[in-house]
């Protein structure tokens, strides 16, 4: 799903309950992360619930990034799915140069997500940016 499409859907959903339901459904549809990738090293710090991220580089010219992730909280899984929808299939350069954190405000999530969780969201954004930068440096 593209960002504009997501925003459109979100705006269409009226109240917070429908938006939450949408987020939870997005999280449910997140492809399962292999058990062996639930490692300490893959853990994203700064989140109130447990979050794991892993990635791989899909060969191509230029190569693109694929992400896998999981959380023990549904709403967080929904946020992960939102982020992945925006960054998956993009090149490290595209991700490193874009402000992926802006989707949070563009979706109007600040009205629905408390500060603690917002910080967790930005920890996830930072992890994605770091992955992209590392891959750039390696290329």
């Amino acid at each position, binding site marked *: 799903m593209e960002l504009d499409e997501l925003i459109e859907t979100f705006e269409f959903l009226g109240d*917070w*309950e429908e938006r*939450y*339901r949408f987020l*939870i459904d997005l999280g449910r549809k997140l492809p399962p992360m292999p058990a062996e990738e639930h490692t300490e090293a893959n853990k994203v710090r700064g989140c*109130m*619930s*447990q979050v794991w991220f892993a990635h791989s580089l899909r060969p191509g010219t230029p190569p693109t990034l694929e992400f896998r992730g999981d*959380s*023990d*909280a*549904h*709403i*967080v899984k929904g946020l992960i799915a939102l982020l992945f929808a925006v960054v998956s299939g993009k090149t490290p350069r595209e991700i490193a140069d874009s402000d992926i954190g802006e989707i949070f405000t563009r979706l109007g999530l600040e009205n*629905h*997500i*408390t500060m603690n*969780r917002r910080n967790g969201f930005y920890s996830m954004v930072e992890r994605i940016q770091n992955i992209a930068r590392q891959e750039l440096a390696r290329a």
Partner: protein
Amino acid sequence: MSGYDLARVRAEFPILRETVRGKRLAYLDNAATTQKPESVLRAMDGYYRSSNANVHRAVHELAERATGLYEGARDRIARWFKASREEIVFTRGTTEAINLVARSFLAPRLQPGDEVLLTGMEHHSNIVPWQLAGAKTVAAPVNDAGELVFEEWLKRIGPRTRLISVVHVSNSLGTVNPVEDIVREARARGIPVLVDGAQAIAHLPVDFPALGADFYVCSAHKAYGPTGFGCLVAKREHLEAMPPWHGGGDMIRTVAFEGSTWNEVPYKFEAGTPDMAGAIGFAAALDWIESAGLQAIAAHEHALLEYATPRVAAVPGLRLVGTARNKGGILSFVMQGAHPHDIGSILDQEGVAIRTGHHCTMPLMERFAVPATARASLAAYNGEDDVDQLVAALHKVVRLFG
């Protein structure tokens, strides 16, 4: 609930008139911190408006007023615990009070391998300070209801036990521990005892001399008082024998480069300009509890817990964590298919404030094999409407995640 005027109690807490997310606020996060009544806000505001000056050692009128209020607060707090004023050491709260005892009382008596006996339901603040002091921490088990297994606790008192420390009321489960029995057994063996009263003082009377514990610690903010203030209640003989731990102003008698001497107790432990407004606010909070009636508050909270427990437990897929027979107004729970943080987020949208997480009791979470719980906790101003709002929101969680 006859004789308890909930509307009047509520009217004294201005924050309860707030709306959150466009909804009526159901504040059920009282074990984290309670709200403050007008009288506490007025006492603290009034102090700064008409009496603020640094206490002790001054010869001007304002300083005398400030000292009078500040030391008056010490008398008030001492009276609450039926202790003498020399037995009240002001701290920043429960955590600092435990650290003081760990550093100044326990550490000097410690040999390698010496132990502090705890329970499996202790707050991190009643675990880590002992470890930092160099003690080995031993914990007695908790049963499936969240009660201390007393016989097992007894068995863990050994020749290396240098101190026993126990939470009076568990912040995660609400369990009220048999502190009288614990103190009796400890004293029979000559082992000093500390009781962590953070969750207790706003709900239970504490008679320090009758209890016979060596140390009792608490925080003002969990008892309708200000944050950043609390106290250590300690037997005077211990305070006399303990070395000071923080150096600076107010704790000294004389200072010379060859060596300094210390002020008398309790000032020996109160370095630096103290939290005058905090002390005054705490005293006002205790006055407030007394005027509302501690027994009446306790009876009200107990009745509300009895009202809430079956209603919360009846929510599909919900499991209560902590079902002790003797229990304070705390409902900790987990729900099938929803992480505690998911629960907290949905409840927040419905105007219900609860806490989610490990509640600084990671070993206890491990014991119950949960990563975290959702916790609703009651106070004097809560009513059946708050519980109804909570239960309705929990049913919404079921609809969303079920």
